[in-house]
């Protein structure tokens, strides 16, 4: 989970990384040697519609 946080923080300061995470998360995982789940989570969070809610509330 620390890796997810680090990745999202980086993407919030780096438009190119943000775009890559949204458009080609598999490539980001490969290039940065990150677990696919970590990159998927970051990618989905960056694409989240603020109006979207979680599952349990």
């Amino acid at each position, binding site marked *: 989970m620390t890796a*997810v*946080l680090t990745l*999202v923080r980086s993407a919030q300061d780096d438009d190119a990384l943000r775009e890559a995470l949204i458009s080609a998360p598999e490539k980001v995982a490969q290039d940065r040697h990150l677990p696919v*789940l*970590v990159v998927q989570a970051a990618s*989905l969070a960056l694409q989240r519609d603020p109006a979207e*809610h*979680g*599952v*349990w509330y």
Partner: protein
Amino acid sequence: MSNGGGSEQFAGVQALLRDDLRAWLAHAKATYAWGADAGVALSAPGKLLATAAPSKRIPQGFWGLVPHEVAQYCATSSQDGLRIRRVAVACELLLCALDYLDELEDDDSSDTRAFLGDGRLLNCATALYQSALQILADLDDPAQRSSASLPPLAGIASEELRLAMSGQHMDLLAEQRPWNEIDPEECVAIVEAKSGSLCRMVCRLACAVVGASGQLTAQFAAIGSHVGIAAQLENDIHDLEQEIAAQGGIQSLKKTDLARAKKTYPLILAYQNTLQKSSPPVDTTDYRGQGQPWPLQAYRDAIQQAWAGAIFHRLSAAALVDPIERLRGMAFPPRLHEILGIDIDA
């Protein structure tokens, strides 16, 4: 991602569990002074006997439905139906009790608390808690067990509940600690202890009541931990979003997590964002910076960061479905995906 489980697919199970719970409640009302108040508590929004319109996201009696669906999937005998329902009712009572205890500890408001008052609500929650444990103890009775080798349900509940209470205590203690003493990793560890343990307990009880294998139980326990953590993070994110939306900013926040300086995951992240991104740095000794609010962008970034954490745990839970299906030799039914909130399109 699933938008939750307010769908009608649970209606049949809910009806069965409601019948069982009403029968239990009738006995409690006839026997105990707290019985009538238990009926009020179990009819609050989200609870199995709720009379209000169901939530779009969470089915009524969620905490009874989770163990029911997990146990149904793991069961190898049709003879287990009654025992499964009794475990489901015990979980509903137990989590209902813990919900009200949490409400009192956090000084949160609800219609039930306002109606019953703190003393009656506390006593009623304690009675529900004890009643749930008694149901589990009754199921552990050798005369009621289908196999002497089944793990004791009361022991599982006791083990996980003590962990959950430790997590809850860490959470309460954290309110008194300064922001710079708690990092995101510790915050998630607290969430795992206080919330992951409860969902894990429910999954373990479901597996135990039907005598699921150790491997299958371990996988469902892991799913429970992930789902419990994700749900708590989502709850904390939602609370922060609501506070920001309601106040049109953070300058005049009145209540709950922010006002109590609760060290929730998104707030810890917002604190760190404030330290890292503000120029000149704002005073971060207080959540509102002693009159100088943390920048709104720090909260917005924190919400996105925390959301990634919640998704990570949902995805981690979803990743366990394949191994479970291989172990069980059977596909996960849609209802199980739905109730666990792991039908994620990634």
